[in-house]
């Protein structure tokens, strides 16, 4: 239970950084923290205390395996999610570079041409 609360604290720090900080890079770091806490939540769902890694060794049958291994499906989902997060991070970094070229500042509060 404590692990879930700690995971939620990471999520809260990520949201705080995304909303309250003005520097674009700090907002991106907040976004990354949010994504990582979500991935951690997915892994924690499949976790089992004292479980073994989900690799079927030759001297085990499938019933024993399903009773003592951690769940492999969330691990597969998280792999995909990490890669999606990587793609989004690359796009965020590219946008930051282009925004700095055009607006000459990293302060998000200065970048407010579109309003109304």
């Amino acid at each position, binding site marked *: 239970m404590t692990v879930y609360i700690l995971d939620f604290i990471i999520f809260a720090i990520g949201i705080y950084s995304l909303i309250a900080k003005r520097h674009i890079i700090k907002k991106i770091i907040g*976004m990354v923290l949010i994504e990582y806490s979500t991935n951690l939540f*997915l892994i924690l769902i499949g976790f089992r205390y004292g479980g073994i890694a989900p690799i079927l060794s030759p001297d085990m049958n499938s019933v024993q395996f399903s009773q003592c291994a951690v769940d492999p499906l969330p691990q597969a989902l998280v792999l995909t999610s990490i890669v999606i997060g990587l793609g989004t991070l690359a796009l*965020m970094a590219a946008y930051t570079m282009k*925004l700095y070229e055009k607006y000459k500042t990293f302060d998000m509060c200065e970048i407010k041409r579109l309003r109304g």
Partner: protein
Amino acid sequence: MNNVLLPLSVGIPLLTTVVILLIGKFWKSIGTLLAPICGLITLIFAISLLDVPAGTYWMGGWPPPFGIVLVIDSLTKVLLLAVNLISFLALIYSVSYMQKYTAVAKYYALFLLMLVGLNGVVLTGDLFNLFVFLEIASIASYALVGFGVEHEELEAGFKYLILGSVASTAILVAIAIVYSLTGTVNMADAARFVVNMGMNKALLFAAALFIFGFSLKAGLVPFHAWLPDAHPSAPAPVSAMLSGVLIKVLGIYAMMRVVFSVFGAPAELLNIILWLGVISALVGVFLALGQYDIKRLMAYHSVSQIGYVAIGIGLGTPLGIAAGLFHLFNHAIFKSLLFLDAGSLESATGTRDLRQMGGLMKKMPVTSLATVTGSLSIAGVPPFNGFFSKLLIILAAIAAKQYFIAAIAAFVGLLTLASFTKVMRFSLLGPLPDIYKKLHDAPFTMLFSLVTLSILCFVIGIFYPFFMDSLFNPAAAAILDQTKYISMIIGG
């Protein structure tokens, strides 16, 4: 049933994207050649899938719930047709519109990637696969919004990127919660668990997260803040795709699939969707009344019209859902027509400000006729398609005894008419400024898309009973029948 056209609708645009990216380094106009052909192929697939019986395709031969399954039922057919039709016409339009941009091969690659994501979201029967295709379409659209890398495009694209990523994260957390409760990510299997277990507090929390994530993608108020910046800043064919197709597939269709097929449409969730729709319809049209940037005005109207669709869906009755889907299809057609018109006007006059345009009807007759058709359709003037779909939504609201909502819907329709009368008067009528004396109408490929969409607006309006009976009533019946969905995929 194993219809092989289902994975091909996703696979052929993906293959074309890779080919365009590889050859685009050597031959710059490979995109202009291959992309419209790919759009035509997927459109032919979508049309030929219209009369197959409902069925599935097991990816890799793995049966559900172990493997990923692609599902086609009546609702999928409607959306597949809308997605592929609008993307084919937008690709034809891009052939001449994108001549003033650089890196055009990458534009076509990103556009086809967005088409991959959209077809995938519509066809999938697996929650995590829905998330993956949703992210593919979203990330491609984040890059496309900022494609012309000027100040405003970059700001709009960055805002859209951050807000869209937060929504996608919320959807992923909701999928994680559903997995932890049901032990499966297959939609039909999760639906079977929900039917047996009933809705408990954890599932309600997951449903709330799903509705937050999908409402942000759909542009419902109060999650619409990215939409009025992102839709004007994108190139015109991308605006047509974003406003015409993306907000519907990633927002409304995904929300319908999750709320109706997985959660079984409990009354609390439908009520939330209904009132989100009412607020969006009102706020969208009020904020649109004061706009003079033509594309920003149309973006606010997108918020308002998606509110109409959400009202239809949130009513939950067969007539309401059929009317909502009819309005969704019509809005795809007339909103993309309007955005393509705005692109044509903008590329001719060089400005998006309505106060600087005037009297363009004399110089650009075909574009003006298309603008008039689109404006009358969205305002709900008979005999165009918008009138019938709005009328059906109001009638469905009255039939469900929601008189206040019907009155609001009628009032919003009146304000929409006022707003588009302003658009027509400022851009088409009035005196022609001297600087526009040498204008001529748009090139043929742009006019082809405009004329085709205008004819569709008219034809769908005149023959609306045929379209309702063949497309939208079966779709509403299919989405309301959760047991049939479950038994079609995992057999009872």
